[in-house]
């Protein structure tokens, strides 16, 4: 290694360790608190209820759909359709959802439950 190599090594090491330390000490709290989850329930395209997640106690909401009342259950930061008058029961069989971007759809009732919030990933590449 020549003198220039060592100088370059020192500069790179100094810059990267300093900035790593600085960034991660300053922004560690900011990167964790950025996901404000909420469940958005809409009927026929109109938002009828917005619930901030997670909820403290298990709650059941009655949503008036096109074919009758459905019961949406919310526990912690996950949501499911507990009861619905539709024939297919696809929405009930889907079970719990809780990740941002996931949704439960009841076609006959025209009910849409969507989990909104910042995704933990910005993008994916290989």
């Amino acid at each position, binding site marked *: 290694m020549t*003198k220039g190599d060592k100088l370059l090594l020192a500069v*790179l090491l100094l810059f990267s360790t300093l900035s790593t330390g600085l960034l991660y000490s300053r922004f560690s709290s900011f990167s964790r608190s950025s996901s404000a989850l909420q469940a958005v329930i809409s009927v026929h395209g109109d938002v009828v209820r917005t619930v901030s997640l997670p909820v403290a106690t298990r709650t059941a909401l009655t949503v008036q759909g096109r074919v009758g009342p459905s019961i949406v259950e919310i526990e912690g930061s996950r949501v499911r359709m507990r009861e619905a008058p539709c024939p297919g029961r696809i929405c009930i069989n889907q079970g719990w959802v809780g990740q941002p971007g996931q949704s439960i759809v009841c076609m006959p009732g025209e009910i849409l439950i969507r989990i909104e919030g910042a995704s933990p990933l910005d993008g994916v590449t290989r």
Partner: protein
Amino acid sequence: MRFGTRRMVFLSLLISLGTALHLVEALLPLPLPFPGVKLGLANIVTLLALHLFGLREGMTVSLMRVLLGSLLSGMFLSPGFLLGMSGAIFSTLLMSALLKHSSCFSMIGISMAGAAAHNSGQLLAASLLLQSTALLLYLPLLLLAGIPSGIFTGYLLNSLLQHHKKSGILSDFFEQNSFNDRRN
């Protein structure tokens, strides 16, 4: 183009060598939790071409390597390909500029700088692609990871060039007369 054919053959060899290294490296899993960290073995070939010929040839080898590597691994025009392309352009330009001052730096320093430029170029392309500057927070970590891999590839290249200086194994390809001299 006095040594046209000889030079073309040698550059083709370098490109295929670089492509092979690129592909082999993609198969090697590094046991690190950071995505995008790799050895950069193919950089040896780019730096060799830069050292023996110049910027144009180095850039050709580097870009052709990225192109062929992406075609063979099925990632042509994927985000990963664009990142690799941008990193390759940045690192080749910087290494060629540093080679002009090769009295100050050995191959180790130049390779380290190339690794740093590659990572910066990649992240720049990634943040343009995702329209977000938040990715630049990843730069310090990548720069840190680039130091050992830069030293490693630079050391390999230093050894290769020393061996070449002693035995002249590479001269056949880019010196017009050496081949004939040995025959006569």
